[in-house]
């Protein structure tokens, strides 16, 4: 098979840091080439070198594409040769239509006048290719993230792509959307389009990849052909982290006490559409020292449930009871919820969790300013001590407490958010996707922190899209679908298959809600024991 791309001895430095050193990458024509590595291993930097974001001359080494040495100075240069990169953050304009987005900067025109009819009909074809049936005039903002990702690919196809680079395309997709995307990639491969897939998710890689290259600390450490060697997840993980990974989850001996938190008949309506019920009468309970999990697809209402409980920060016309230690509590606004010992660690730490331009200290004290102040005056010394304490406890890696959080890695940012909520002294900690966008090593640390908290007697509610994570961490798992709980499993009898089945069968047979409601009434009887 022909080699379409070869990158040789790539070295790229930033002031004070060697980001890439002696990286070699060889992509064959018509294959799916996966690049894996921890956050900070240099994957994205390498792709920026390839696509001309870092122009020729700012790195050393050579790039050979389709048999010619290439010296890209801008992204346009690389796009002209057929290398197209789709970044993690999608580059679509929300208030423009699909057709307008696909032809953005590339409009079919003569004398500066755009031929929209041509654009529409071409868009129609492209959408068919990526398996979408939307009208070309639909606005991007009305599409889900999964479909937007497919639009990005359609945009790439429109530019006559030869090598498609996808930077963590499924990071924010649920399983069915990820599945559609991966199927599409396999379809493109049939048409002879090569792709480079950067991903954290090993199950996806083992499904589609023909070749895998592993980067660690800016160097290629391993590269192998999956069509020859069978894929071994252990081999990949070992190479990624440079160590053997015996356990991906910390061992814990749960000491589960009595019920401390209960939600009864919780109903929430959509904030903009007053008649749309988003949460449809949910009941659940959580015990002291217990980690409960909430599984479900994205859009099933997990985040909405959590945020509506947390001081009605989502939705309207919320009804239902929140009970803590046997008493009804008022969680009608966020500060009341915090005062009742509820904390919610958001899934979107950058836009909902952190003051990115502020330092660690300021972020840690934010949810409990009274804890570091007297008579409304902040005691900076006390604040500093608190932040330093959490820095040590949670092993936040930083140059100092006064470092801005925007400069921390994803894992360390997540620890800062955790520290903020731990300092609010919660009894009930709701964690929404606590390990999203965090590399393998840092994940383990986050898991350890979570299990420590449970053993201190806190009650943890963990929302996650990654089933292995829920199975590895939780004592009990609820499965959520379309605003209600479809099933409940104890740790002993939960498996990925059962959870998946609960999701699928629930959405096919709406009647089942009835049986589930009876099941949930059943939990109520535990109460008070």
């Amino acid at each position, binding site marked *: 098979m022909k080699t379409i791309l070869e990158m040789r001895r790539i070295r790229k*430095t*930033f002031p004070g*840091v*060697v*980001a890439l050193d002696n990286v070699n990458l060889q992509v064959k024509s018509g294959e799916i080439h996966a690049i894996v590595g*921890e956050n*900070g291993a*240099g994957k994205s*930097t390498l792709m920026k070198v390839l696509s001309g974001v870092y122009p020729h001359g700012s790195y050393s080494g050579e790039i050979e594409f389709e048999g010619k040495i290439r010296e890209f100075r801008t992204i346009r240069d690389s796009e002209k040769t057929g290398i197209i990169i789709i970044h993690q953050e999608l580059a679509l304009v929300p208030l423009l239509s699909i057709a307008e987005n696909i032809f953005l900067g590339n409009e079919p025109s003569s004398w500066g006048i755009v031929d929209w009819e041509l654009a529409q009909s071409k868009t129609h074809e492209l959408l068919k290719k990526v398996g979408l049936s939307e009208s070309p005039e639909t606005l991007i903002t009305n599409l889900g993230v999964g479909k937007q990702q497919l639009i990005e690919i359609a945009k790439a196809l429109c530019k006559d792509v030869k090598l498609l680079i996808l930077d963590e395309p499924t990071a924010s997709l649920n399983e069915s959307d990820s599945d559609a995307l991966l199927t599409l990639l396999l379809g493109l491969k049939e048409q002879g389009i090569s792709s480079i897939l950067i991903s954290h998710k090993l199950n996806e890689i083992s499904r589609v990849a023909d070749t895998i290259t592993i980067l*660690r*600390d*800016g160097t290629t450490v391993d590269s192998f052909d999956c069509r020859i060697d069978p894929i071994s997840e252990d081999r990949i993980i070992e190479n990624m*982290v*440079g*160590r*053997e*990974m015996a*356990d991906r989850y*910390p061992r814990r001996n749960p000491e589960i006490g009595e019920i401390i938190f209960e939600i009864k008949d919780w109903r929430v309506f959509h904030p903009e559409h007053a008649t749309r019920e988003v949460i449809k009468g949910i009941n659940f309970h959580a015990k002291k020292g217990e980690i409960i999990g909430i599984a479900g697809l994205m859009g099933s209402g997990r985040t909405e449930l959590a945020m509506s409980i*947390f*001081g009605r*920060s989502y939705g309207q016309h919320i009804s239902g009871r929140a009970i803590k230690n046997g008493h009804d509590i008022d969680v009608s*606004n*966020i*500060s009341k*919820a*915090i005062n009742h010992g509820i904390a*919610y660690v958001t899934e979107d730490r950058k*836009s*909902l969790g*952190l*003051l*990115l*331009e*502020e330092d660690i200290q*300021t972020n840690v004290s*934010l*949810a409990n*300013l*009274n804890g570091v*102040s007297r008579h*409304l*005056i*902040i005691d*900076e*010394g006390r604040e*500093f001590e608190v932040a*330093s304490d959490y820095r040590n406890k949670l*092993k936040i*890696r930083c140059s*100092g407490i*006064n470092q801005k959080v925007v*400069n921390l*890695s994803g894992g360390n940012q997540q620890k800062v958010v955790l520290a*903020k909520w731990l300092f609010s002294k919660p009894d009930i900690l709701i964690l929404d996707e606590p390990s999203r966008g965090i*590399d393998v*090593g840092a994940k*383990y*640390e986050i898991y*350890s922190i979570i299990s420590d908290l449970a053993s201190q007697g806190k009650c943890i509610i963990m929302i996650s899209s990654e089933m292995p994570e829920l199975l590895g961490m939780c004592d009990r798992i609820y499965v959520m679908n379309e605003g209600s709980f479809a099933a409940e499993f104890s740790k002993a009898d939960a498996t990925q298959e059962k959870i998946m089945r609960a999701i699928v069968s629930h959405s096919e047979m709406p009647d089942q809600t009835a049986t589930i409601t009876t099941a949930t009434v059943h939990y109520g009887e535990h109460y008070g024991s």
Partner: protein
Amino acid sequence: MEVKRTHAVPVSQPHKTTVTPIQNSSNNNDKNTTNFIKTALREYGMMLSLLIIMVFFQYMTDGTLLQPLNITNLILQNSYIVIMALGMLMVIVAGHIDLSVGSVVGFIGALAAVLIVNFQLNFILASIICLITGAVIGAAQGYFIAFFKIPAFIVTLAGMLIFKGLTLALLEGQSIGPFPDGFQMLSSGFLPDPIGNTDFHVFSLVIGIIAAIALLLSKIIQRIRHTKHGIHTEPFYFFIAKNGSFAGIVFYFSYLLASYKGMPNVLAVMSVLIIAYTFITNRTVLGRRVYAVGGNEKAARLSGIKTARVSFTTFVNMGMLAALAGLIFAARLNTATPKAGSGFELDVIAACFIGGASASGGVGKVMGAVIGAFIMGVMNNGMSIMGIGIDYQQVIKGLVLLAAVFIDVLNKNKAL
């Protein structure tokens, strides 16, 4: 930029980590010092610019700029801008803007004139009514901005038109004045001199000395506290040099003022307000919340901060300070005119941005805004003395605003 770091490693498991080859410890010290100088430059760059601008005009005006009379005038001329900049800074940090302050200055001046001159109301009572009115104006605008999420730009643009119109209506297109002497003292009076020397105002000098010593002491106490808690402090020589020169400057200016008519009342009011607002923004829970709301409103709300209430408070505060500025301005002119306050909002907003506040909120310091206001003030004053026409004065001021923000942006990009 990708930065390498050592791996997170579960205890007791074997691991190998590669340490970044470039960073070796020998140049760490050097790097710390350059880093420190960089941050210091960024922090005190504005103050340095003000000094340079003053030296420049001192030279260009053959020493007129720093003459006691001119310094006193400079303070009187800029006091209302500085006072409003304090409120505007909080509004901008919270992520909003207030375009109405100029009109509010005019309106409050008119109100004061009607109450004091036409209705013969006691001027203290009238001033209190005016301050309350200012707060109510701020509350009314803040209500729409904070609780209905209407952009501040639009609400205060409406306010600008409304209060400009109401000023005209209240004054019926005429100027009203003069004010009684007691009211004029607010702006043109000087602190009394109990020590009783007519040529040299020892009392003002004493206040200056006390202020300089208080400044030094508070900085020393702060440094001791920081060191006790293990908070990183600046190098000792720098600490001494910096605060020594601050104290020196305070002493020098009080000496200049003492050799003319002493310390203006307005300066006393202004100083108290500057200290109070510095404290509020740096050390109080309210101040921290303002920064949090401007930095990331959603994250602040999810941390239990009542963000709408915080924004509302900043506008009430702004309205009250605009009213105070209106009183001072009316007292200074000794008459209320329909044109009073027009264009002030631009100077006030420019002062905040020159002083390093960010238009997207979350960033900005009280001292920055004060220095920004004085940079504008010194340039106005200096260029007038040099005889530059009002036309080119505006051009130059515009360029300075652009340059200040441009340098700030460059600095920040480099800091990444």
